Structure formats: C-alpha cells, structure tokens
C-alpha cells in the first residue's frame, strides 16, 4: 500500500462506511443493519472513552514539560494539576463512583466549581448589554433594542405591575416573528448540516483531515510529509 492509501484513502473509506451504515440503518428494515448500526455507535462511544485516556496522556506530557523546565508562574500549578488528577483517577478506580467519598469529591469539587462558573455568564450578559447596544440609527439595531425592551419588561413581576399590556406583546413577538424567523433559520441550518455530512461521507470534503481541496488538485502530493 502506498503512503497515500494508508493516510488518506482508508480514513475516507472508513468515514463513508460508518456514515453509510448509520444512514442505511435509519431507512431500511433488515435486522442486520440495525445490529451493525448499534455496534458502530457503541464503537463510537468506545473511541470517545479511549480519547479521554489519550487526553490524560496528552495533559500529563504537557504538564511534565512545563514542570521540568520550571515554567515561570505556572509550574507549581501543574504539579497540583497532576497530583489531583492522578489521585482522582486512583480514588475513582479503587472506590466506585457511587462511593460516598467519591460523591463527596464530586459534589464539592466539580459541582461547586461548575455552578460557580455558571454564575459568570450573568455578569457577562449585563456587561454585554452595557457595552454592545451602541444604539445607532440603523434599522436592525433599533428593532433589536425595541423587541429586547418589550420582552424584558414582560419578564418580571415588576413589569407587569407597571402595565399589564407587556405580556401579550411579548407572547406575540415570540410566537409570530421570532418563531417563524427561527423556523427559517433552523431549516437552512439543517440543510447545511446534511450537505456537509454527505460531502464528507462521499469523500468530497476532507477538511477534518486538514486537507482543504478535493483529490483532483495537486494538494494531495503536498500532504505527504
């Protein structure tokens, strides 16, 4: 096999095979297809799980490099990262994830950190409102601001206490213009999704391999290292 076959042709063929089976399983009745399809999906989850371990190796290598060259200001953080990471993995493998101690770790490390992170977007949203609505006399910006304000006032008890009319206006804005514009967006987006999927399954587009053009171009030669 030439280098080209192993490096480009086979991966493209595998994409076509996996995608083709998943699509065929959806349309056609024979049992063999759905068995094959569900095994492929399982294989997908297996590769996903394996990539988690690849990630572990990758992060370990990166952190080790930073620690060994004593990267200023951050090498001790990487020591902590590696220590916690491996302690966590060992704890999780010795005890089960349903063990009380693991649950305690999960609740007070991951959940606490994650919920705190979810508090950041609220601040960002208000900063965005402060910074981004530079109302110019442009139709789009005016419309954006107007519908923003109308819906805003209907969103809280205070707005309703001021004027009860905000609520029906909000319902109309959201159910008529917003919903139908969104429907158009969703259909367009989905057609694009199918387009990219089929292009890649048919091997016309190979950007996921880092190759921009179709095989007819001379690009393929440059691809060999």
């Amino acid at each position, binding site marked *: 096999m030439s280098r080209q076959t192993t490096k480009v042709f086979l991966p493209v063929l595998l994409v076509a095979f996996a995608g083709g089976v998943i699509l065929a399983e959806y349309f056609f009745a024979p049992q063999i297809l759905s068995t094959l399809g569900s095994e492929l999906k399982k294989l997908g989850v297996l590769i996903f799980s394996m990539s988690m371990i690849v990630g572990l190796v990758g992060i370990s290598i990166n952190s080790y490099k930073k620690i060994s060259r004593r990267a200023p200001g951050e090498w001790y953080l990487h020591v902590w990262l590696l220590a916690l990471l491996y302690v966590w993995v060992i704890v999780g493998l010795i005890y089960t994830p349903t063990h009380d101690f693991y649950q305690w770790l999960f609740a007070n490390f991951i*959940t606490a950190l*994650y*919920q705190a992170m*979810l508090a950041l977007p*609220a*601040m960002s949203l*208000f*900063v965005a*409102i*402060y*910074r981004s*609505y*530079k*109302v110019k006399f442009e139709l789009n910006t005016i419309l954006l*601001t107007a519908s*923003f*304000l109308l819906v*805003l*006032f209907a*969103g*809280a*008890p*205070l*707005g*309703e*206490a001021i004027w009860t009319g905000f609520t029906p206006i*909000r*319902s109309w804005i*959201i*159910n008529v213009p*917003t*919903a139908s514009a969104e429907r158009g967006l969703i259909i367009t987006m989905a057609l694009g999704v199918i387009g990219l999927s089929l292009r890649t399954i048919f091997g016309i587009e190979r950007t996921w391999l880092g190759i921009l053009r179709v095989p007819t171009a001379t690009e393929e030669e440059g691809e060999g290292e």
Partner: protein
Amino acid sequence: MSSLLEGVKKDRFYVSWILVIIMFLSYLVPLGIPVTIRDPTREVYQFLNTLPADSKPLLLSLDFTAGGSPEIRPSMMAVVKHAISRGLKFVVIGIGTDESTALMQSLFDDSGVEDTYEYGVDYVGIGYIPGGEITVAALAQDFSSVVETDAYGNKVSDLALTKDIKDWKDFSAVIPFDSAGVHMFWVRNWTPYDIPYYGSFTAGSEPRYVAFYNSGDIDGYMAGLRGGAEYEILTGFLSTGVKSMDMQSLTHLYAFVVLVAGNVVLYVFKKEGK
C-alpha cells in the same frame, strides 16, 4: 484603591459589582413587590388541590441539571410538598440528564417525604432512564418494559405502588420538570393521550410552550423561578422561589438601566472626543 484597581476594566468592574450587590440585597432586604398569580400556575394548583388522595400516582420527571436547578427546583419542591400534604402518591423518574438520580435523592431528603410516606407504597424513585425521546414514547405505551428496577435495585414488579402500572392510564397526571430542553419529548408523546398534562420549564422556553397551553394540549404549567414562586404563594410553602422574585424584578430593571447607561456614557464620551 487605585493600586488595587490597576489593570481592571473599570466599566466591567462596576457593572458586575452592582449586579451582584443588587442580588445580595434583594435576598437580605425583601421589598415584597407583589407577584400576580397567572392562570397556568393556578390550573396546576387547582388540579392537585382537588385530586382525591386515593387516586392513581402522579408521574414526576426530573429532567434538569444541577446547573439549571436554581430555576426549576423551587417549583418541584412546592409541587412535591403540596402532593405530600394532600396525601397524593407519586413516581419519580428522569429522562433528561444522568444527574436526575442524584437530584431525586436530594428531593427525597429535603421534602421530608420519608417522615409521613412509606417507600414503595406511597412513592417510588426510579431515577434516570436513558434513551431520550424513544423512552418517553415507550413509557406511555408500556411502562413495565422500559422500567425494570428502581434507583435502589428493587424490582418495580415487587413494589406495591408500581406493580400494576402498565401504561399512561395508570397515572392520574404527568408533570415533567425540565431545564435540559427535553420537554418537547413529553409534549410530543404524552399530550395525544387523555391524561392531565402539566409541566415546569425555564422562563426562556415559556414562549415556545404557550402555544400548546392555548391549544389545550398542556393543561397548566409553571415557568421558571416565577412559576415556582407563584406555586409557593398558592400552597403557602414559602421558600426560595418567593424570595427570588424581588431579585428577578430588580435585575430586569437593572438591565434597562445598564442599557441606558451604556448609551449615555457612549454619547458623553463621543462628545468629549469631538
């Protein structure tokens, strides 16, 4: 102060600090801005308040994540406390996220269900069931084929409450609590049946489901923190929902102020620039 603030983006700093201070103060100094009870929430309350205590169990689905729980949890707690006070039986499942088993456990711990209810007879916790929309559809047609054991490893066919449940007819109502965006699964697959359908979802997704309420598919709902607060007022189990209403009103007002302030600053700044 000036050395402390060096390198900080000033505008951003003030905008976020004022937001957080407003939120803290709204909990510490309640203003009591009146909350009007809206019809959809009242419908849920009236249904649960008139349902006879010996009727079939309610099906509660916890489809929210730990992240979304500040918004949905108040309505869930209020509904469950109300059901307990009325002696209604219930089955708890979860289809949206794998976090629902843990959320269910915290619901049982915090609602005091264990004090008055007997597990397996008055309530059952199934926990997370994987499979998404297909599962939701299958639950309505053949409950026992989808659910075999509860969250604690008991066979559902051994538990008094669940052993006779076959399909949707064996529940008196279904109430999904959703922040994971799976409420549509329930609407699509359960509203065709003749079973009272109530729901709780995020305020942001309320507009999408209003259409189903208007057409009569959804009999009533609680939207976000606000819906939870309304339900707490109706039942008298006042908790975080009601306490958060001032915060909601004030932050909305603040959003308006910030919008105006941003433009004023821009205008003044531009003028000076010229």
